[in-house]
């Protein structure tokens, strides 16, 4: 539960990829028909893809635009730029006055209103009362077509400050924030585009200028590099006409080619010892590079992550929290991404317990899996969990992890918006032997980055200056 919450929070701040949040699964009979999402997809002459899906449950419509660009596509020396750019998309465009976008949506009763950036994509979404669909299309089309007309130095300056504060909030002043960033830098050494953090470094944020915004917009925000999904209570014919009216005349260049980056490899164990300044308890984290989203091995990693770290009966929880009582909490995730994924195990120590003690126990659990795999029962439980989660993800029409996001995600990664059945079918193929093989071949001790984030002895816990005054 806490894991889900943490992921949701990450999505809010930065938008960790929606796909990574929900390792989906295979519905059994009663739920299956509900997982097929009826939709229509077509492409405007300028290359903009349109996905329409009617859902009349409530009188609301979600508009969700994906630009197929993320932190992965940034230039060297401009880490964080894709996300900084995302902020600029809320600052007005030629026909939409500055700071009007969000205010107008809010006073119209929009919910699930935001933009998020991941390594692989950037999305912008709003769920509006059904009579305001045209207003949402007006707003989305104007920033897709006319953003630069309203761009100013001052706006960039302000948003740079806002984003630097976002970074301070999510990295510098967050427990383990800087430590986890170091681990990612070790997994993907610079200049790999996944290196570090979607939000970028302070130095690179400082370096970003108006010309960068212009160039990034012209290259990556072409209609040919975007897909708009409209999901909810709307009239299909009228909506097609509206999409034509607002988007068809937007000029576009060709679909940009994303950088071709060779997969990285970790060939020897990297150990990071971080002097933790914010958190009060030690954290041990181990991370490996794994198969990309939806590629062979990705589903196996999902199942193992669930068996290891989800619930009180999971293997790591049982050993480290229940039996040995060395850890406060454990976590295991497969963060699925377009180029390469990351499999992470984390444990937070009980007071007085060392990270070395945690590592010993985690290694013991991993050795078990390398020898025996997991049980068929664990695999079935994981699948049932994914069934439920996948169906639940179709309840909300807009926002991160919603129905429109699901369509968009499959569309970007496999070119087929309704891919739920195929996605879930992957988990039917996962066997105890495959999990064993994955643990042995991929989760190798010499292919991992191990992070010990240990609070500095004098920094924490905060002093209890009883009765003293600061004035």
């Amino acid at each position, binding site marked *: 539960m806490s894991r889900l919450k943490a992921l949701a929070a990450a999505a809010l701040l930065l938008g960790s990829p929606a796909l990574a949040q929900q390792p989906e699964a295979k519905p059994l009979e009663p739920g299956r028909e509900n997982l097929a999402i009826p939709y229509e997809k077509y492409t405007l002459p300028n290359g903009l893809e349109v996905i329409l899906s009617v859902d009349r449950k409530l009188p609301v419509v979600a508009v969700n635009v994906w630009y197929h660009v993320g932190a992965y596509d940034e230039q060297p020396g401009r880490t964080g730029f894709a996300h900084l750019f995302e902020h600029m998309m809320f600052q007005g465009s030629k026909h939409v006055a*500055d700071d009007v976008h969000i205010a107008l949506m809010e006073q119209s009763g929009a919910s699930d209103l935001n933009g998020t950036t991941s390594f692989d994509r950037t999305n912008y979404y709003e769920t509006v009362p059904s009579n305001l669909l045209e207003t949402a299309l007006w707003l989305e089309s104007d920033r897709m077509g006319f953003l630069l007309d309203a761009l100013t130095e001052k706006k960039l300056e302000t948003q740079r400050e806002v984003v630097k504060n976002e970074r301070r909030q999510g990295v510098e002043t967050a427990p383990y924030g800087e430590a986890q960033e170091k681990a990612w830098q070790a997994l993907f050494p610079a200049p790999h585009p996944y290196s570090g953090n979607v939000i970028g470094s302070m130095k690179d944020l400082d370096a970003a200028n108006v010309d960068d915004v212009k160039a990034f917009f012209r290259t990556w925000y072409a209609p040919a590099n975007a897909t708009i999904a409209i999901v909810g209570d709307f009239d299909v014919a009228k909506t097609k006409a509206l999409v034509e009216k607002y988007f068809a005349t937007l000029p576009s260049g060709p679909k940009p080619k994303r950088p071709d980056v060779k997969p990285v490899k970790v060939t020897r164990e990297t150990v990071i010892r971080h002097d933790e300044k914010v958190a009060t308890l030690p954290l041990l984290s181990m991370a490996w590079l794994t198969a990309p989203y939806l590629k062979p091995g990705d589903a196996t990693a999902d199942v193992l992550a669930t068996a290891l770290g989800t619930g009180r009966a999971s293997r790591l929880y049982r050993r480290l929290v229940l039996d040995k009582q060395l850890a406060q909490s454990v976590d295991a995730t497969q963060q699925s991404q377009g180029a390469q994924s990351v499999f992470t195990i984390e444990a937070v120590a009980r007071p007085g317990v060392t990270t070395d003690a945690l590592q010993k126990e985690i290694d013991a659990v991993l050795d078990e899996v390398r020898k025996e795999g997991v049980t068929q029962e664990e695999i079935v439980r994981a699948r049932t969990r994914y069934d439920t989660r996948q169906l639940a993800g179709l309840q909300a029409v807009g926002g991160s992890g919603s129905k429109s996001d699901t369509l968009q995600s499959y569309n970007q990664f496999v070119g087929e918006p309704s891919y739920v059945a195929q996605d879930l079918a992957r988990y039917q193929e996962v066997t105890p032997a495959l999990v064993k093989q994955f643990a042995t071949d991929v989760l190798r001790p010499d292919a991992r980055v191990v992070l010990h984030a240990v609070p500095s002895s004098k920094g924490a816990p905060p002093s209890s200056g009883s009765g003293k005054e600061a004035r």
Partner: protein
Amino acid sequence: MHRRILTALLTLTVSACATTKPAETPPETPASQQPQTPAPDPEAFRDTQPKPGTPPEIVLPTFEKAQLDNGLTVIVSTRKELPLVFAGIAFASGVSQEPLAKLGVADLSYRMLLEGAGKRDTVALDNAFADLGVSPAMSVEPDGAFVGARVLTRNVDAVMALLSDVVLRPTFDAKAFDRRKKQQLGELVRRMGDPNFLAQQAYYAAVFGADHPYGHPSGGTPKTVQSLTLADAKNFYVKNTGPRAAALIMTGDVTLPQAVEWAKKYFGGWKGGAVAPKPPPAPPAPPREQVRVVPKPGLEQTVVLVGRPGLAAGHADEYPLELATTVFGGFFGSRLNMNIREDKGYSYGANASLGTRLGVGPLTAYAAVRQNVTGPALEEFMKELAGIKTNPITEKELAAAREGLIRAFPGAFETVEGLGGSASQLFFHRRPMDEYKKSVEGLRDASAAEVQRVAEAYLDPAAMQVVLVGDPLVIQEQVTPLKLGKLTLVETPASDAAPAPKAATP
């Protein structure tokens, strides 16, 4: 302030429109190089914001209620589109029912429900839920607690059987308690590393008083938790829960008659005399005399919490105050955020919210600001609060808040777990089943004069308590000149010997 800026920028944009023409071919040429042409602009239609069609009906969820002979309340909200059901038990006693010497007992007691029930121990119970595709959710709040799960329709009966074990037949195993207690003590250490938690803890003590039932967060202090025994946890559960102080919540693919049948089958035999507790007393809202500082040396941002007691759910001022708070800081486009974030760039975001509770809840404004603008940012908080009186809420601001809040209702109830959460809140706050209809009416009917009156009454900067978490020296240097009150370091219960959270007033 931001209004004027907005107008200025608007003018800029409009003038840009007059002198430029959209690029017709890629790549776009810079706007400045475009010749001015008198030709009709085919894109001119974009200058006009589309006129919205007829607003759809405000579709609100229906909550239905029934009661079993043993007193158990059943609350249902039916939503049939998907074969999903959210089911759980809401308990009417929460953190506010903890005796001061036993802070943390509510949390520990309720969490023991998932540490073994019926014939299953911790692991077997978790596996039984996992067989249904879920980990059970548990939350312990000021006014109640909730345990439940979201499952496919075909798993409802099975999950009800498990919940019945959890609620009626918890094991309260001694070994599991011992472990859970140590884990809880560890949590108390862990959360000392979270600046937002430190702020919240000091804030509750500042607004309600450390001895008030709402004066502390869930979880207790090292001292109180250390002293808790298995008997304490068991007694809390026995004394505070029972069918007359609980509700079965079911939302989604389920009807009221079905829910009543399940309630009878699995909870019909539940006995116990506990009744729902009285609301905590209203705290005083005295003028601010101090600025409380939780030291976190070297922290790059300062967490700012500004607030006071608000009101209890159902209070006559609730909807006017909701509107006033929204104009002040509830929306992204509110005065506070537009100033602190969008104009000054001091923060990733500033907001204000009215925390509705069974008793008087907190009225809170929040931002995490860059360390070296702690003083200026806090000054802007105070200016915006004072500005509510000197620069009264305009008709336009009020209309935006009113329409925005009302129109957002349908979209706020998309998920069965969301409906379940809302149903629990109705139960915790003892609100009628048509509460949301009343909310819409209340928001619609609140007059401008009423909104302005409550805004001035509740947002007066003089009665706003201030809590800052950050580098004490920076705060001292930046905040002292503002003369907002004596800077006082707040003691945090980090060590075993520390007492309950308390402002260390010299």
